[in-house]
């Protein structure tokens, strides 16, 4: 009695519902997928924004060099071992002109002892706050530079030169001692660069010493992304 069409309809009702549900859910899934895709497609654009922001915001207002210094060093030894390091800092002309402007009151191109004392108080002593930009490790242990000696300032042509001694006594024994020395301003207002061939050693007769200027593990920052060059001195008592 049933017509084939009705039969088909009967059979197909649950089927249709099922298909309908399947279609619905598929469309929801597609929608979700589309949304996710759109979010993912946003990523490259976001990736473009991030470096722009990072470049812009990477650091604070004036943390880039405004003073340039060429430094050279003398490591001094006596019969007991290392006594310390004599530093010589040569300033760039622009900052030099300002130091002269402020402290060479008589503009005679020469710093008198009184003027040197003024330079020390007004444009050097504050560096103690930054350990004079000197970072020392003795056999891996930090040695903090708290004071310096024999400060001297001079004018050479258009440039100002600071000279001072950093005491750091390390006894020389039979087993080798290792000293790492980094000169750098961590705030990066001052750019410290080592003058080629600027390391001399005084008192070679007392110790066997070898040295190198290279980057390595002793001073490595930002998970190794900044590895500045520093000095490594290895010495032991001459037998």
């Amino acid at each position: 009695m049933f017509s084939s069409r009705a039969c088909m309809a009967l059979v197909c009702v649950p089927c249709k519902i099922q298909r309908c549900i399947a279609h619905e859910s598929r469309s929801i899934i597609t929608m979700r997928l589309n949304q996710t895709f759109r979010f993912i497609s946003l990523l490259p654009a976001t990736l473009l924004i991030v470096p722009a922001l990072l470049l812009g915001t990477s650091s604070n207002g004036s943390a880039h060099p405004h003073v340039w210094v060429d430094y050279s060093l003398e490591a001094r030894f006596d019969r007991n071992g290392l006594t310390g390091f004599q530093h010589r800092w040569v300033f760039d002309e622009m900052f030099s002109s300002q130091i002269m402007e402020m402290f060479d009151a008589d503009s005679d191109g020469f710093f008198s002892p009184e003027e040197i004392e003024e330079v020390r108080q007004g444009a050097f002593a504050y560096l103690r706050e930054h350990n004079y930009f000197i970072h020392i490790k003795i056999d891996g242990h930090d040695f903090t530079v708290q004071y310096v000696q024999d400060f001297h300032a001079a004018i050479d042509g258009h440039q100002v030169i600071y000279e001072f001694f950093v005491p750091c006594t390390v006894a020389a024994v039979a087993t080798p001692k290792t000293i790492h020395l980094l000169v750098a301003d961590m705030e990066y207002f001052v750019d410290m660069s080592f003058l080629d061939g600027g390391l001399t050693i005084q008192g070679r007769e007392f110790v066997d010493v070898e040295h190198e200027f290279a980057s390595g593990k002793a001073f490595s920052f930002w998970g190794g992304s900044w590895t500045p060059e520093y000095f490594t001195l290895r010495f032991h008592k001459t037998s």
Partner: protein
Amino acid sequence: MKTFTTVLAAVLFCLLFLGPAWSQNPFLTPPGQGQKPDQADHSNLDRNQGEPRARPRPTPTTGPKITPPFFAKIAALQRDLRQKITAYAREIQEKPWGRATWQLMALSLVYGIVHALGPGHGKSIVCSYFLSRRGTMKQALLFGNLITATHILSAVIVVLGLSWFMGRANIAAFHSVEGRLESVSYLLIMLVGVFLLGKTILEWRTTPQEHTEDCSRASTRDMLTLSLATGLMPCPGAALILLFTLSLDVFWAGLLAMVPLALGMGLTASALGVFTVGSTGLALNLSRRSKRTFILAHRIMACLGALVIIVLGASLFFGMRFS
């Protein structure tokens, strides 16, 4: 509103005089309170090696505030450029209006481009503003140049003012003024950020969903305010050139060099601005296919940009006090 402006003006005025009167130059910056500078009597500590070791100071473990090697390259380039600038300035001293004058101008342009690549100089403000507000390429060019122009103009005014009142200006005097202006500038940046965030949230809550086809646009008024707030802090790089030429008695050449310097720095800042406008535009266009994503994307960016401005201002403001 009027009362608020008056109070704000009063606070800023006080800050100008009570604020820290120094900048970051480590050679000329007195140590923070409670810490004594190096005294002559330290020289007799040398016999007592134990003493300095007894109070160890924090050794650098966090690393410098730079991200080398990119910045190291910039620094090396700046060093060369600055050396050339000093050489040309000396030549100008010998022979005004000679070839050196034009070389100095050309060099200042290059120096400006390179100098502005370093941190600071309002680039971050330009970028975060265009993240927060949708701008056009023209606006990016305008904002980038405006912000560096005020930055340099401020240096010119400070140096001129100092030489006017003191006879001869020097870097220490400049830093003392810079330090005061800095704190005011950072506070203003923070306030503008808060204002932008507040405006974003207000728009968000008052505009019904169906009307949010368009996102908040950059306005000249905002850009002008931000330029004044950021540029208030004088550019130390520009000041050094000015002071150097002043000490050589060729101040006019230094002043003239400020124009190409500002243009060069403006080029860098506006290039970054154009880049941000382009990438935020791209992000928003991609999200435009779905209205919800679009609204979400632009709201997130609007808030994020304003937040970055607040965080920048705050970290600089409090950073310089408590660091």
